[in-house]
């Protein structure tokens, strides 16, 4: 799993490449935890994610909860069709704000500023 962190305005862009499963999820959690602060605005670019396991999905949901607890927000972008489908059929997608592209995701984040 490769994790790259960049910034765009107020938002943090975290780009993930590889599989999200029980072995990589702790690394993602570590990296993200450092970015979570009050009113954090986080975009998770998953264009390079090829596989998302059951445990991986659960980690994502826990991260989302942490961000919300900190009154921040997090969006997912660039889900491949299989990943999007798994999230949809298992009901996980209903917990996330999902956008197609990084631009859309950033726009979504700024639209929702202060919505919390």
């Amino acid at each position: 799993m490769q994790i790259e962190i960049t910034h765009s305005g107020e938002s943090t862009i975290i780009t993930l490449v590889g599989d999200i499963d029980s072995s990589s999820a702790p690394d993602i959690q570590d990296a993200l935890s450092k970015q979570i602060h009050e009113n954090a605005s986080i975009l998770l670019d998953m264009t390079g994610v090829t596989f998302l396991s059951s445990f991986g999905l659960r980690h994502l949901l826990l991260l989302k909860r942490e961000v919300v607890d900190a009154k921040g927000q997090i969006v997912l972008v660039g889900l491949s069709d299989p990943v999007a489908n798994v999230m949809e059929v298992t009901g996980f997608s209903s917990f996330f704000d999902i956008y197609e592209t990084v631009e859309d995701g950033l726009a979504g984040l700024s639209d929702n500023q202060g919505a919390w």
Partner: protein
Amino acid sequence: MKRIDTYPTHEYEGYKISQGKPFPFGATMVPGGVNFSIYSSNATACTLVLYEIGANEPMVEIPILEEFHIGNVFCMTVYDIDPDTIEYGYRFDGPWEPEKGHRFDDSIVLLDPYAKLIGGRDVWRQPIDVNNPYPFRSRVLRADFDWAGDRRLHTPIEDLVIYEMHVRGFTQHPSSEADNPGTYAAIREKIPYLKDLGVNCVELMPVFEFDELEYPRDNPLNGDQLINFWGYSTLGFFAPKAGFAASGRYGMQSDEFKAMVKALHANGIEVFLDVVFNHTNEGNDEGPTTSFRGIDNAVYYLLDEDGDYLNFSGTGNTMNCNHPVVRELVIDCLRYWVAEYHIDGFRFDLASVLGRDQEGEPLSNPPLLEALALDPLLAHCKLIAEAWDAGGLYQVGTFPAYGRWAEWNGKYRDAIRRWVKSDQGIVREVGQRIIGSPDLYGTRGSTASINFITCHDGFTLHDLFAYNEKHNLANGEDNLDGANDNYSWNCGVEGPTDDPEIAALRERLMRNAITILMVSQGVPMFFMGDEYGHTKFGNNNTYCHDNELNYFDWEKLKESADLYRFFKQVIAFRKAHPVLRVRRHLAGEDYVGSGCPDLTWHGVRPWDADWSGWNLALAFMLCGENAARRDALRDVVYVMMNMYWEPQVFELPAPTRNGVRWHVAINTGNDSPDDICPVGQEPLLEDQRSIQLAARSVVVLVGKAE
């Protein structure tokens, strides 16, 4: 603070282990590892076999130490293994003494009876890996689904309209246009359809993991592989069928199933499961050994004195349901599905097996049935028995109910089928069936009766009036399988016909049947596809076909818009009239002195029902003046059934109150759309004193104030 008992005490081939917790049974995530617990009363040794998911060879086999063996329970915690990526099984050692009931063979890797997930058939009909002798593997489930405020519906049972369905069959046909055909997720996609139809309960045919590839036979008519489509052949009772999940390949069938239940609940639809505890997939001594046989054969199965399998299920073996250990397994399983999957009710396949003792004799007070009826966690859940078995026990009306159990009323099915095809000598019984079978359920109320005319088993509603005989050759059993007493009538031609009169008659008989079902006291159930006249071409036992015989045809649904409209409106009619849904039995009494008893019988002349054997005309009035439900007080319904092959004039009783006049809700003698009228728009009946019913037709009137 960390628990002080979460440290390994032993090591085996680099794996850190300790004595496990005996409870709960199965594999459970604990701090630092996974706890494994399984029992066998006759085994001498047990080995845990761990695999990487998908690997043919184990990563390690850890014998469970004698000091980890508590009573008959083998329990061990293994540390530092990743529950996301492992699967497991067990080897059991013990005597091979079939004559004493013991069939231990430690060369076989067995499924955990408490496995919450089962791998091996992750995708429906995925090709078998011939290099993998033990494909069925137990997996660890992380059971932390976010139900986000899901509420149990607790719909009163008398208000249910049960829709029996098959998960794959419902959306596998290309015409479903579902994103994920044949899956739990696709049921979620089709919720708008279920709501439009008006059903408020889906009863899913077996969803516990089974092996669809277990049959060695082909279809003799076309050479296609026969598939166990229905799934009455359980591999493991705690695991949802992975091949019914779009996410099964990722091991996420549990989440997908729960997402479906959550969405159904959010739309007011309860979820019942058809559960099969009477037997397992292992068959008789020639069947596969996948779990129970190799763990504790003499405990799990009913055996005769020579150790041979008793067969009250018709499938080779019979679960020993009133052995205390098996009983606990069944109770644990149902509690699990209620607690973990939010299931609202269960229909028990061949439930009479659950009332037999360890020798196979029927018990007068079966501990398992009592335990289920009085269980705290199952308290609000509906329990429905298929009150017979393949060993000759037939308990419709006498199933040990403990004030809780309802029954599939097979006598309702047979009587109404015969009535609709104009059999004489049945009118008196029809009278009982329509009012909730008080002759069978005197003290239990009408809600003990699950009324149905069709279900997955037997002819579809369409085929009931298109075939005199079953046509089961495609099943590969020389047409010997399936019921022979179908009480069906082909209306003159066996199978499809271009004759418009016969086609019209079939349409009318289907409408008569569903109307009678929806105006009967008790709980109505019908099978998916009947609402558009699905045909199985006369096959009355399609358990082995993964094809159009069992697929709901969404294109045909569009073509049969008139019949579908009728179904939808007749369901709406039932829901609109509380006098059709009375919990206690109607008694023909006028308790409140209103002048209108709750139930009165009539014939072609009012107040003059003819119960003689040859009669085929019957009418009844349901009046809500005496009802306990406030919403029923002004409700009055008059139902006339002319099962004669000639038209007949029915004289009408006066409506109950001044100012109330009869309006026509349903007349199956009319062509669509005049066969049924949307609730609230029923036209006034011009002649309030009499009406002519067409040959073989049903008319339903409602009393409305002008």
